[in-house]
């Protein structure tokens, strides 16, 4: 612990004194994320993109030019993210913007990018709006959207015998849209399903006991959960004690991601159907190469954030290589339809809505040697869970 503290102190000192030194012929990438607000995601995320950048530059960079990332913290606030984006574009002269975690920050930076005519490759924000209703030609997004993850889970949920469903989701756009898409898709597949209760605890302030009893009172056969982070921990421990999840199917967004599953340790729920990232179980050559490189460099296992950071920079390098230029219009033209390799296999940025085809693993939670894991995980390709092209065109504003 003390060692950790010392290391971090050294890191501060380094951060204070060292600045990314970029030469004129380097390609500068402006990166923004919620480093101070959300370290449990952003620390592995930063390790991921650093690994990718090291690999790319070790092979000579892009067209002989080294990639340099200038990284800024938005402290979890959209207004700060816009300030940082401005600094990166106006002061640092970056070729493009990348990153962000929270949906509202992703949207704010996407709007800034459209206003300033800069390319923005969003990594994590899950909101459907960023590629659909608020989509713009300057913005691309890597991770499978809320809609895609809901569709993957609804497919599994439809196979369950459960007819009476209840939902628990944080009371903001992410939770609301996850629930509404899931409801729509499951009801379409299973007209016999009834929605018997819903709970909307404020994010970070769940009153787990009261929420669970309210759900239990409606006697559902199955529960959809969209809670994550500290709220999930409370919900799981409380539900375990009260037996709310016994004899019930649970379908849960993101719970299989190490960021959210690992803190639960031996108390992780068993048999929940989840999306996530079982890094210990993915035996593809792409992933094994990534895993080895990551563990060699950091002596730690990757989280999903690591994959997002790593793939983000791989995608950006592919865009730059294909464009052969840092001109925004050329980069956008190159990005539409560009393919690149990720730990999850090859991924393409769709031309139609600038969403990547990256997918997610769907599986079940279980306990193995006292540790929370995800089992029976199958990779689902994101683009297989999209609405038809015609519908997507209707969702996106014309510009």
């Amino acid at each position, binding site marked *: *612990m003390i060692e*950790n503290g010392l290391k*971090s*102190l050294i890191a*501060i000192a380094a*951060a*204070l004194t060292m600045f990314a030194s970029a030469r004129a012929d380097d390609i500068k990438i402006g990166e923004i994320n919620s480093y101070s607000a959300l*370290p*449990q995601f952003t620390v592995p995320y930063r390790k991921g993109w650093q690994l990718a950048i090291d690999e790319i530059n070790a092979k000579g960079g892009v067209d002989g030019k080294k990639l340099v990332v200038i990284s*800024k*913290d938005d*402290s979890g*606030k*959209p*207004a700060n993210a*816009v*300030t*940082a984006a*401005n*600094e990166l*574009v*106006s*002061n640092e002269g970056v070729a493009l913007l990348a990153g962000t975690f929270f*949906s*509202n920050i992703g*949207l*704010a930076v996407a*709007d*800034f990018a459209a*206003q300033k005519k800069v390319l923005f490759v969003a990594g994590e924000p899950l909101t459907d*709006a960023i590629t659909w209703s*608020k989509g713009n030609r300057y913005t691309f997004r890597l991770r499978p959207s809320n809609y895609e993850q809901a569709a993957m889970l609804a497919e599994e949920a439809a196979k369950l015998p459960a007819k009476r469903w209840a939902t628990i989701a944080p*009371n*903001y*756009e992410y939770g*609301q849209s996850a629930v509404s898409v899931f409801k729509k898709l499951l009801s379409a597949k299973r007209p016999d399903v009834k929605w018997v209760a*819903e*709970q909307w605890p*404020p994010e*970070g*302030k769940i*009153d787990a*006991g*009261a*929420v669970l*009893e*309210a759900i239990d009172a409606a006697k559902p056969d199955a529960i959809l959960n969209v809670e994550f*982070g*500290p709220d999930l*921990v*409370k919900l799981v*421990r*409380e539900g375990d*004690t*009260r*037996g709310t999840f016994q004899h019930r199917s649970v379908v849960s967004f993101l719970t299989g991601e190490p960021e959210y599953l*690992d*803190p639960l*340790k031996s*108390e992780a729920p068993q048999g929940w159907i989840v999306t996530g990232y079982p890094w210990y179980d993915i035996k593809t050559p792409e992933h094994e190469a990534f895993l080895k490189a990551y563990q060699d460099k950091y002596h730690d296992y990757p989280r999903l954030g690591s994959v997002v950071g790593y793939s983000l920079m791989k995608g950006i390098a592919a865009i730059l290589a294909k464009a052969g230029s840092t001109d925004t219009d050329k980069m956008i033209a190159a990005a539409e339809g560009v393919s690149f390799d990720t730990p999850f296999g090859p991924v393409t940025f769709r031309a139609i809505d600038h969403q990547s085809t990256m997918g997610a693993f769907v599986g079940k939670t279980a306990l193995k040697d006292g540790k929370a894991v995800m089992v029976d995980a199958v990779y689902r390709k994101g683009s297989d869970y999209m609405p038809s092209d015609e519908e997507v065109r209707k969702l996106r504003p014309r510009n």
Partner: protein
Amino acid sequence: MQLFVVQLLSGLASAASLFLVASGLSLIFGVTRIVNFAHGAFFMLGAYLAFTLTERFSGPLGFWGSMALAAVLVGLLGALFEMLLLRRIYRAPELFQLLATFGATLVVEDVVLLIWGPEELLGPRAPGLAGAVEVIGKRVPSYDVFLILLGPLVLALLWLILHRTRWGVLVRAATQDRDMVAALGVNQKWLFTGVFALGTFLAGLGGALQAPREAADHTMDLRIIIEIFVVVVIGGLGSIEGAFVAAILVSVLNAFGILIVPKISLVLVFLLMAIVLVIRPTGLFGRREGAARMSGAVVINVWKPLDLDGFVIALALVAAAALAPLALGPYGLAVATEIAIFVLFAASLHLLVSVGGLASFGHAAFLGLGSYGAALAMKLAGSPMLPALVAGPLLAAFGAAVIGWFVVRLSGVYAAMLTLAFAQILWSIAFQWTPVTGGDNGLLGIWPPPWAASASHFYWLTLALVVLAVAGLRMIIFSPFGYALRAARDSDLRSEAIGIDRRRVQWRAFVIAGAGAGLAGALFAFLKGSVFPGAMSVSTSIDGLVMVLLGGVETVSGPIVGAVVYKLLSIWLVSHTDYSKLVLGLVIIGLVLLFPKGIAGSILLPRLRRVATAREKAAT
């Protein structure tokens, strides 16, 4: 019936830990009059320490010993904090100690990350209380039952300490009239340290007891701090019994509220607080605060309008600011624009806090109303930028008129908390009324038209409006209305005797301050191109207060200095360090110790006074 009982029990269990933390805060406020913003940080430290200790010492003795040890350690830290920091600034203007506790909170948040890392830490369950007990066919966690019993037990213990020991008598006496206690020869220093240690011990205990229920993480301090302020205020400041009743009220209402309207839990407690304060201005069990006696050491500075020299200096500064586009690029100008906007925000808050004597924890409400007013004028009515810049302040002024009407009926921290309640209610409307406000995804595309879009043009526009508005606020301060406002602040009775209607005067000040903050908000929306509910959040309100306090409450120009220093510092630190909160917190604590009257107050005032005395001498 079954559900009723179960919800009641889970509400009562949540109430217990809330009560522990809130009672500590209430005690501290009652005796020292310090609004201890760091109370949440002590709660968080309790949870983290309990995690580490329970991981190390297993078994029932190890577990319960760890709980107690964690609380004691937090209490010791609290005592240390009081002795090293707060003790030096008791003589500072009211609320100034809030700055120090705010700085400490920032420091603790980053230190926790450095020591314990970013991941959530879930400690072991309580030995012997890991399971559940059957209550009319429902399983209720045994730990909940333990908490339900613990609450009244702690209340009883505190009652005994306060009523049956000499120390407790002194604490109660100090809560009622601390000057009198001091006059009777009681050593206040140790009394304050003791109370602070007990208060933070309770916070630490609350945090430790929470460890078996939830994971420790680095944001739990902010999650609880506002809620415990609400509990303390509903119960009545300084009243332990009040905190107990209020904690139960808040928790039980929450447990039942989500049955009826699941989405309302965001705002329920603030609605409750607003209603309680409107009906009972000093909370359920609170007594009206005795009029604070001015202690002899406080020198009241006579405010003077700018003389010729001052006017020339001010004009030169404005001219220099107007030339900024010659030296700064687009990013530098955007930062300068943001600073100018917050100068206006701080100056408008200053009118309430310093001139009107009305502390506000919810001034961001008006910034947010200004932002949303401007953005909605543009989005819904298709208005161009300039009319939108009028619509924003108008909406904010209207909001201030409504909110102010209620707030001026209260005083002190109660008034401040009522502004917070209204700000939170407005925040949750912005957050939940998705069809109009866009919810947390906000309103996008609020960019200035082409003629104002370049960084320098928008900067000049902002600078012009801000200079006019700040000059206007200054003129108001030195107008007859401003004198009336200050008279009402300094003595309610005397001002009433000369025919000043305190409430009316303060109400007008509210509307003016609201409009000022609204203009800042409207400009902010166009600077960022978007509006989010975060503009109305508590942290924005606290930022404003920090700027005013940092600059110096007792000066007229303080908020300008405070806003420039604070905003510049925080933008630079976020951009250049990974641990911006740690550094910012330390800088704030350093400034508090160096400049106990605020930066402007400590640097400018003595100099001005020297100049003034020199002139007087020359004249005679």
